[in-house]
């Protein structure tokens, strides 16, 4: 499903340049649960962002379902993010002025789902993460664990095949962290492809495979 061929990412800052990824080649099959691990600054987030089509590689090829992603327009990439990717971030990234309900609704608004289908889906998702009672609350009125569960519900809004979770438990206490991992495992069992970044070996043990990154390279 995901195929990287010598992916490089170079950041330029003034005269200096920094190689965040230096030729990573990997494959992730549909339905896998993969954990990405590595020290801080090793390029984990960079890798995730490229997989999620939030960022583009400096060099190398990225095939998503056999199609080269290079050369797609902004709107085509937006459509891929909307339909194929569900993002969960370390800092939640919920919209502060929107309620839990509205946050989950947004990805569906971007793909033109009708009102009745939206309502059904949001209710279903809120039930799944156990927060139906909290639907009218804004992020600032929710705990970190609750916010991350809303973020996960939002990631699932359009039922994307791939879930990208970049350190989803990084800002959570261990109990909330475990809840999130359990939700992710459930999704994996339902057939979603899960790609997760974590520093925690115990959480990584839920996954099938671990990719170790070191200084922008795959370490074995």
């Amino acid at each position, binding site marked *: 499903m995901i195929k990287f061929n010598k992916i490089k990412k170079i950041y330029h800052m003034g005269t200096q340049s920094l190689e965040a990824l230096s030729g990573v080649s990997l494959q992730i099959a549909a339905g896998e649960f993969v954990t990405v691990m590595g020290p801080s600054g090793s390029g984990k987030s960079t890798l995730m962002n490229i997989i999620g089509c*939030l960022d583009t590689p400096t060099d190398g090829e990225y095939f998503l379902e056999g199609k080269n992603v290079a050369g797609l327009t902004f709107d085509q990439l*937006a459509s891929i993010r*909307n339909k194929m990717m569900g993002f969960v971030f370390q800092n939640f*990234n919920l919209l502060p*002025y929107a309620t839990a309900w509205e946050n989950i609704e*947004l990805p569906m608004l971007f793909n*033109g789902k009708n009102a009745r289908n*939206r309502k059904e889906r949001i209710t279903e998702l809120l039930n799944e993460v156990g927060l139906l009672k909290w639907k009218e609350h804004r992020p600032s009125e929710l705990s970190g664990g609750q916010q991350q569960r809303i973020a996960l519900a939002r990631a699932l809004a359009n039922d994307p095949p791939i879930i990208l979770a970049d350190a989803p438990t990084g800002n959570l206490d261990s109990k909330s962290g475990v809840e999130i991992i359990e939700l992710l495992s459930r999704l994996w069992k339902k057939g979603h492809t899960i790609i997760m970044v974590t520093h925690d070996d115990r959480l990584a043990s839920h996954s099938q495979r671990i990719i170790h990154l070191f200084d922008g390279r795959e370490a074995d």
Partner: protein
Amino acid sequence: MNLTLLRFFSNEFRKRRKKAALITFALFWGSLSILLLLAFGQGMSAQFRISFSGLGQDLIMISGGQTSKLYQGLPKGRRIRLYPDDIQYLKERIPEISLIAPESYNNWPVSANRKEINRTIHGTTAEFAHMRTQIPQMGGRFLNTADVKNGRKVAFIGWKVGTDLFGTENPVGQKIVINRIPFTVIGVLKKKLQDSMYQGPDADQIYLPYSAFTQIDSQLHIDRIHIQPRETKLSPLIEERVETLLGKKNRFDPTDRYALSIWNTIENAKEAGAIFKGIEVFLGIMGALTLLIGAVGVTNLMYAIIRERKQEIGIKMALGAKRRVIIQQFILETLFIFLKGTFWGLVTAFNIIHLVRLVPINYDGFGIEGYLLRPVFSFETFIIFLVIVGTLVFISGIFPAVRASRLNPIDSLRYE
């Protein structure tokens, strides 16, 4: 666009509208000045048109002159006069003429109520009323054809003549004596603006049936012929034919520019109309520039909003927002901000214009206030205003909107 998305946008906007207060005021001020300038400009040209037609509408006025060319052995410098039978003569030969009337005048003492004043007394016919906007006040009338045919001793007087002789009394039905012959007042001229004249304003004139005028005044010729063409565009043609016909009849060279003196208000009005249109456009541009200051403020605000919302824009992009959605949101916010300011500008301008129009105009001392006190809030003004505001919304919103839509989602998300 989706209604839910619209509600979403408006919620996000409402959280920050306080920032827009100063700019809302600038927009209010700008739209107020644009509307007032347009309304006063339009009012001025409208008042000008009214006062121009105070003399008469679509009028050709002909009076005698002095020859400057030889004609069939006759010398230069001869005085050319017009005669009462010229009226019938021209009317029969120029079908393009809609109305034609003679006018003769002289100064005579007028007395009534044991008061005596000197005024210009005119002799004319019923058609004169239509050509020279002689509209009677309620309860009176202008001279009619029967008055003229029968030489009735009746008079139509300017409103100032009325107050000079009768004070606050109603002059209609009263007797006035002109050159020792008594006349009955049948009508008083309604007040009007008049900016061009040849014997003083119509407010000071007295009109008699031509046939009655010849009984107090022994003058054989007439001083002026008034002609109204069937269509305004026929006026040059009529001028030319009058010169040819009267040249033959009263013996002068029709190409002699000085034999007749012709005053064509149609051509004059065209020129003056263009000048006033120019003033209107100028005032409109001044107003638009004032509003432009507000628009620049809006653009600045929108750029500031982008910085502030970088993360939110990044989140929306991560969730799959296309460029169009981001642009729409920024344009809509620009529109909201504009609507608020300009709406109150519109309401305020409307009320000011309405109040100013209530101030009465003094028709006796003819002053600038006649032009200033009748601003017009027309549909046209409103449409021009909408077009200007719409254009400004677009140009002040589109650049920030496009900038926001071109943000890199990853850079926006890294923003803390």
